[in-house]
Each structure stands twice: as C-alpha cells, then as structure tokens.
C-alpha cells in the first residue's frame, strides 16, 4: 500500500501541469512561438529563436 502511494505521488508530481515554472536551457525544447526578450531588465521585443534573442541584446 505504501509503495502504491509513493508511486502515485511520483506519477502526479511528474505530470506536466504540476511542473510549473522551469528553466528551459535546451533550445530544442522551445516551440517556434515568439517569446519576450528582456535585456538587462529592459523589454527588447519578441524573438522566435534563441539566437535572435541574443542578437537583440547585442
């Protein structure tokens, strides 16, 4: 019973909706949708790739 409960808890908390915020460091995880870019606290616009986001701040 204890094992079942532990497994259930692991299952629930692994579910994406419980993941909440997360840092996505791997660019391949990103969808092609635009994302907001901030350079040193200042909004710089929307980018669709990580490279574009980097370029916007340079």
């Amino acid at each position, binding site marked *: 019973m204890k094992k079942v409960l532990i497994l259930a808890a692991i299952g629930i908390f692994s579910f994406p909706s419980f993941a*909440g*915020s997360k*840092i996505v460091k791997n660019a391949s995880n990103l969808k092609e*949708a635009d994302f*907001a870019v901030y350079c*040193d*606290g*200042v*909004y710089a*616009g929307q980018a669709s790739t990580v490279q574009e986001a980097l370029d916007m701040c340079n």
Partner: protein
Amino acid sequence: MLKAMLHFIFISYNFLIMKQFCILLFFSLMNFTLQAQKGIAYYGQIKSPGMRSASGPDLNAYLVFNQEHSYYVTAKDSLEKDLYDNQSIFKGNNEQQVAYNGGKTTRYGQQVYYNRDKDSLWWSQRFRGNIYIAEERPIIEWKLQSETKEIGNFKAHKAIGNFRGRTYTAWYTLQIPLPYGPWKLQGLPGLILEAYDQKKEMYLYFKNVEYPTTNEAPISQVRRPGGDPDGWQTIQDFEKMERKSLVKAYNSMVLRAEKKGTEKPKKPVFQEIYIESFE
C-alpha cells in the same frame, strides 16, 4: 519641630521628583526598546510579467525592519548560491516563454528602503544599468478581508489592493503590527508575509521571520556601487523609461518583420511587459 517638618517636606519632595524621574526613565526605555526592536523576514520573489503564472527566476529576498524604517533586497549576488546564467529562458504553464539576457543578480541587488517619518520610498533596480528612484510612499487602498490562513506560525489576514496596474492579494499578520512588506507593498496594519497579483506574475512568498532578531543586516538607505552616479530620479522618469522602451522595441520588431517579410507585429501591451505598468 519646625526643623523636622522642613526635613519631612524636603524628603517628600525629593521622593516625588525621584518617582517622576523613574516613571520618565521607564517610558523612555520602553520607547527605546520598541524603536530598537529589529526584525528580519525572508521571502522568495518570482517576477514573470506576461507569463500568466509564477514562472520567472525564483530569487531569495529579505526585509529587515524596526519601528522607523525597513530595507528590502533581492537579486543580490550574496543571496544566491547558484547564479543564473547570462541568458535564461523560462517557460510558463501556457506556452508563454521569455528570455532574460544579462545577469539576474548584482552586488547590492534590487533594493527598496522605506522611511516612515519621511513617508517615502527609495529604490533601485536594473533597467539597462542600475537606476535609482525616490518617491513619496505610494498609497495602496487596501480592502481588508475577513479570510485568514496560517503562514508559518502566524495567523495571516487577507487584503486586496491595486498597485500600478495590478490587483494584489496580500496576507499580513497582526502578530507583527508594522506596516511593512516585501518589495514596494506596504501600508497594512501588520507585516505582509505573502503577496501576489491576480496572474501571479509578481509572486512574493514567505520563508521565515526572526522578530526580534540579533541579525546584523543593516536597515540602510539604498546602496550603490562606486561607479554609479549620485542622485535620484523620479517615478515619472521611470514611467517614461518604460514607455520609451516599449516604443523602441516595437519599432525594432516592425523593422525585423519588414526584413523577414512577415506580418506586422502586434503592439506590446504595457501590463504584459512590465510589472509596474502605470495603466
């Protein structure tokens, strides 16, 4: 006989003076103790404009205070074990994504100093370099609610108030009856332990409090590194900076869209871009 009477009057008079002096001393000491009583509250701060959830960098923060003033700091190098990368991409629950370029923390961090006598706030934050703003204390018209909950060992009361374009829920405790709170939120009958806006894009959560404390963290005016200029800008200057950045960003987006031959982009919505939106 007369001599004895005079002696009695003299002793009685001295006794009265002594009594008054002792009472005065007692109240002075009480007042001094209350004023000197210092506390420190530890929070977490997640700021994620436009993400519709608390999905930004989760930073440590603390608020140190006494009867007269308070000092809040976050995004400070010494408060973070693992410094964030120069570029971080955060993903929200609803496919929103945001990229932050530039370090999240600095030597002195983002600070807010509140002095009750002067009824003013002084604060600093990153906005293409450090900016320093002085302003009269913003009055938040809090509506006190009957709802309560436990936060740590404290009974917290709910309040709702608007501040610079967002509606905040704050949980405060009457067990520390001082009008301070994390970041720029203040003005409740007790210390704010937790606060967040409707979308939780500004999320300030409670970790711990020591009251009274012997912690030596100073309740100081906003500190700045040697290279930064002296002086303060106004809240109107800050609003102008934010508005100008939106126009600049939009113009760049239009240019990029023209180069790519894609659709003209939508104008950015102030409230979705910055936590303090002045609208």
